[in-house]
């Protein structure tokens, strides 16, 4: 039998199963905590830091936090919202993101968050890194310009033999996500599609397929990200 715990988010009393991921627990209580690297069903890894909240006054990522009795959570303080805005801007300036020409435009979580946070021009200088596009794979394209290094593909994708297909390479500003030549060799069309779908941006694309859902009919074209949770 599951035990329910009571906790507060920005003063609002919430209920959820004990030990539930805070992101999910908040969702059940109609509260949206912005996330990027988190993906339902795969282990969390607190990489993007966007879901940082205050737990009893201390900063912690909501994706790696499990709810417990009497937890006091703050998520919409001015400082935290400024921080989230900064993270989104940092992701834009560290890569090369040209939304109008991107297959994921309208379905992209980074773009959607930028709209939600009303970002016009970033406060940080653009870094304009030189990054490549890999197209050697028969089914996938890996566009390093758009990759936000969130690790979703690394954590969530295994081939039919249970082996990893993606992994990090290098570190720091040179960090990248690479595709394994051997383990990715014979992936099915379904798995290739799953790789694209797990990516929050347009860094992993399925080859020879594009704009099957036209612009204007995409996920975030009319409603901001998170609004489905808040409107319930």
């Amino acid at each position, binding site marked *: 039998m599951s035990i329910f715990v009571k906790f507060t988010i920005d003063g609002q009393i919430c209920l959820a199963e004990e030990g539930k991921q805070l992101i999910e627990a908040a969702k059940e209580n109609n509260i949206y905590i912005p996330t990027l690297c988190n993906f339902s069903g795969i282990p*969390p*890894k*607190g*990489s*993007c*830091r*966007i879901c*940082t909240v205050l737990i009893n006054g201390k*900063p912690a*990522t909501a994706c*790696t936090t499990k709810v417990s009795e009497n937890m006091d959570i703050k998520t919409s303080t001015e*400082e935290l919202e400024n*921080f989230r805005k*900064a*993270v989104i801007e*940092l*992701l834009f*300036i*560290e890569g090369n993101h040209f939304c109008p020409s991107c297959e994921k435009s309208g379905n992209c979580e980074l773009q959607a968050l930028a709209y939600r946070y009303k970002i016009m021009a970033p*406060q*940080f*200088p653009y*870094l304009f890194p030189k990054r490549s596009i890999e197209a050697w794979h028969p089914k996938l394209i890996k566009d390093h310009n758009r990759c*936000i*290094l969130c*690790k979703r593909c690394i954590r969530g994708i295994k081939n039919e033999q249970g*082996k*990893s*297909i*993606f*992994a*990090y*390479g*290098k*570190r*720091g*500003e*040179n*960090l990248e996500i*690479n*595709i*394994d*030549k*051997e*383990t990715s060799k014979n992936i099915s069309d379904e798995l290739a599609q799953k790789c694209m779908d797990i990516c929050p941006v347009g860094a992993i694309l399925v080859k020879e397929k594009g704009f099957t859902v036209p612009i204007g009919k995409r996920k975030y074209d009319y409603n901001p990200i998170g609004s489905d949770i808040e409107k319930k």
Partner: protein
Amino acid sequence: MGNTINAIIKKYNGDETRLMDILLDVQTELGFINDWTVEQISKSLDIPQVEILQTLSFYHFFHREPRGKYTIYLNDSVVSNFYGKEEIKKVFEEELGIKTGQVTPDGLIGLFETACIGMSDQEPAALINEHPFPSLTPDKVKNIVKLMKEKKSIEDIKGNKYGEGNNSHYLMRSLVNNNIREKGAVIFSDYTPGEAVKKIVKELSSTDVIEELKKSYLRGRGGAGFPTGLKWEIARKAKGDIKYIFCNADEGEPGTFKDRVILTELPKLVFEGMIIAGYAVGAKYGILYLRNEYRYMKNYLEHVLQEMREEGLLGSFINGKKGFDFDIRIQCGAGAYVCGEESALIESAEGKRGEPRDRPPFPVESGYLNKPTVVNNVETFCTAVKIILNGAEWYNKMGTKESKGTKVLSISGDCERPGIYELEWGFSVNDILKKAGAKTQDVLAVQVGGPSGNCISEKEFNRILAYEDLSTGGSLIIISKKRDLIKDVVLNFQHFFKEESCGSCVPCRTLTVIYEKIIKKIVDGKGTKSDIDNLLSWAAFMKNNRCGLGQTAANPTISTIKNFRQLYEEKVKGNIELFNPDFDENSAIKDYMEVVNKK
């Protein structure tokens, strides 16, 4: 070559968690690790190539292409630069006919730079094929290059002027000096190996050991200051039949070198501390994580471990006590500052990239191979032995209210007597300047606790080093008034953090690049007042990074803006805010000009 690789993998029983050792051994044998080698290792261990590359490409001492029969890593630390590193670099480049980052056309000698190698008391220094060459001069460099061109062995190139103490041990033969300037009552006091183990076996239960440590108020010496007794107690109570004791000898904080000296002169004291921790916690395995820069000590330390096995201090039935089994292995790193963070260190010891873990769970609950793991600093283990031998009461008589006992300090920079000082807690920065032979009137700043610490000005030299005032892992870099603080110190530190970020958290990965860029802009005279204000306000975003590295990576900038703002303002004086003084028309249109074939 295939046989060599297979033999190495067999040595580690094909265990993928020993990937660091496998890669280190393969590189020692083959000189570098290319795609073909990665493929072989991948087949043998049955893990994807991309995962091997994930570990391999994380550490800067692993090479993907040949780096010369002799590989020189010149130390690019702040203190090395104070002591003429640029001149040494110039002589190396002239004598070799190559630039830094290149290998001679015949493939004989490669010249590279690396972050602080733990020799700040004898700079400029370099590592050549993992052997330290401290106190370099232009003449020494010329001679070294001459001998390398004659293809002499590394032993011949070193010569025989070994450092004092165990540095001259036949398994080390190192040119490094200890420079112990002051011995205190705890670490560098008289010591007979094995006595503490004998005492616990005879008189103390595991809980007694923990109680004694708790009574002593011993706090971790790595910098964070967590109470050691409490850490051991949590690990003891943690569920799990297998537990581990880790000694963190990944001393990477620039300007820190105390662990180098302790490991050289008192390895048995360190290992005995680990044995006692094993007894208290109920762990049978210990791992000493040794930074790659100190790999020159490995054979010597292995020898010491073997001696201790023969003396009955390691192995089964320690001191004849049934059930008291403990042994230690040495895990070498491969060049990554972030591995000094305990959970990154554990990841690295498991053969992975050194990426800090999310907490909770803490290592004491779930650490190495997901078992309860105690990670303590070299100095902490040494102190624990002395507390067991002399009692908490003896220990509590030394130090201040919240900081008991002594602290081993690494002092370097602009002073007459750089080196190791073991002092009772409660000394002021002024006391240290005096001891080290630095005239207060000549000192501009003191960097306390390395780049992740605090850069203080004259106004604070009367502050006390203690957990309750100026807390430190133990390094002080003295910076004289003849230095350009922003150019010589801050820029170097920000570059260091950019290079050493693991890259996992967005603010750390990206802001470290921006901080270095803007400091460079200010140093070049192209900054504006708003740059200074931005640097200060953006620092708040760093607090939400996962680990200590990320959380402190803006400290070099913010502590100097707070304490030396006028130095920044002088550099941006006269630059008009409305324009971007950093804008250069020619470089902005360079690509266009190339496309249209104009120069």
